[in-house]
Every structure is written in C-alpha cells, then in structure tokens.
C-alpha cells in the first residue's frame, strides 16, 4: 500500500467524522434536526458505495463530498419557486425608479459599516445572520455557495438549476436586500 492510497474504516466513522460533518452542515443549513438527518444519511449512503471509494482522497474528504451533494439537494428542494419566491423581500422596482435612479427612501447612506471589526463585534454578526435568514432559500443557497465554498458561477448554476441571467438577478437582489437590512438594523 502506497502513501497515496487511503483506506475506509466504517467502524470509526462516527467517532472520527460525525462532529466535523455536523458542524459543516450547520454552517450551511442552520437547522439542527435537518443537520442530524443529513449526517446520518451521509454515512448510510457512504456504506452503500464503499466499493466505489477510489483511495485517492481521504476518508473525510470523500464523506464530505457525499454530504455536500445532500446539502445541495436540500437547497434545490427548498427553492422550487426560484425568482417568484421573494416573499417579504424587495425587487429592483422597490429600489430603483423607472429611469434607474434610487428611490430617495432606498438610497444607501453611510451607517458605520466601514468601521466594524468583525472579530470584536458579535452584535453585528448576529444582525448579519438575522438579515441573511430573511432571504429566500434559493438566494441564500447561491450566496452561501459563492461566499463559503467559492464555487464557480457555472457550477452553482448547474447544481441549483439556475440560468446565468437569473444567477445575476439573485446576486443583485440578495445584496440590495442584505445591505438595506443592515442599514436599517445597524445604527
């Protein structure tokens, strides 16, 4: 056995990887029950394809890849409505007048975001989290895949079944809403 070949040891899976996979999921899907289910499903799905393990990646990398696909499935299921699903969120017409100018009451103003030291400001992070949770599932999924895993735009579009044009609409609306929410709540 060369140094480059990895082995699986399902007897140690839970002990070695369960907490890691759970934390990985919680950061992407903020729901404890769902996260537990996904970790369990990941191990069971992995058992079924042990023979497909190619020894090229570590056990943890392999399990994480299976989990990641399951998380994307959840994103996809949650976001059936896509662009129609903007409940409680504002669209371009709410921010911009017909000729393209900001509506006066939606104009960005300086609200001190430039001076925040995020390492210190727990308070700001909790507001940021709340503002993110208000976003529709699909928007949050696109945003998370982009900013957490730095996925290629083409990959995100393919996996979430979003057209490139809609991808940009989602990114744009997400940021407009997120920025407005922060301005409103961080004074």
């Amino acid at each position: 056995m060369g140094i480059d070949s990895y082995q699986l040891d399902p007897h140690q899976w839970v002990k070695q990887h369960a907490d890691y996979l759970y934390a990985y999921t919680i950061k992407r899907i903020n729901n404890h029950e769902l996260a537990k289910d996904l970790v369990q499903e990941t191990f069971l799905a992995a058992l079924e394809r042990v023979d497909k393990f190619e020894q090229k990646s570590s056990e943890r990398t392999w399990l994480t890849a299976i989990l990641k696909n399951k998380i994307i499935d959840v994103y996809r299921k949650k976001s059936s409505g896509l662009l129609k699903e903007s409940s409680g969120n504002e669209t371009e017409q709410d921010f911009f007048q017909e000729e393209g100018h900001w509506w006066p009451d939606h104009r960005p103003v300086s609200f001190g975001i430039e001076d925040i030291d995020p390492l210190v400001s727990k308070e700001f992070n909790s507001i940021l989290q709340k503002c993110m949770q208000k976003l529709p599932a699909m928007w949050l999924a696109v945003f998370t895949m982009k900013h957490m895993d730095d996925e290629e735009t083409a990959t995100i579009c393919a996996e979430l079944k979003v057209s490139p044009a809609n991808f940009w609409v989602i990114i744009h609306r997400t940021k407009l809403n997120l920025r407005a929410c922060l301005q409103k709540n961080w004074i």
Partner: protein
Amino acid sequence: MNYLKRIIYGCDKATMTIEKKLVTGSLTFREKFELRIHFIGCSVCRLYSRQSHIINELVKQLLHSNPPANTKLDDDFKKDLQDRIEKELNKN
C-alpha cells in the same frame, strides 16, 4: 445623448455591474467605462460599491468562522448511529 443619460441615471445597472465585478473580478471594457462615468456623478453608487465590498468580506468571515463550541452531536445520537452502521456492515 440618450446613451450617456442612461449611464448617468442607471443606478440599477451600475449596482448590477458592481456585483459582477465583486464576483468575477473582471469586467468588459464597456462595463468598466460605463461604471467609471456613472461613478463621476453618483456618490450614492460609490458608497454602495464600498459597502457591498465590505459586506462580502463580513459575510465570508461569518461563514468561515468556527461554529460555536457546542455544535456537537450528543453521545446518544452518535452511539445509535454507529450501532446502525455496524448493523449494516454485518448484513453483508
């Protein structure tokens, strides 16, 4: 003149271009040109651009920060899970 007017008034388009720039890191020559013209007259979009960049950084830091220390599975759940795995293994 209409073309120039659309650039000057088009905060909707300018903010979209700003997002493109933040995500892809590159713009076409035309996009760069139009955004620069727009910025000359629009302090609101200049501010939006700064804030949007900062928000991306803050979101990234939030997403990459460690989950709270109590983000662990409880022992009962883990025991049941490993038992279930053992059961599946014994089936084969």
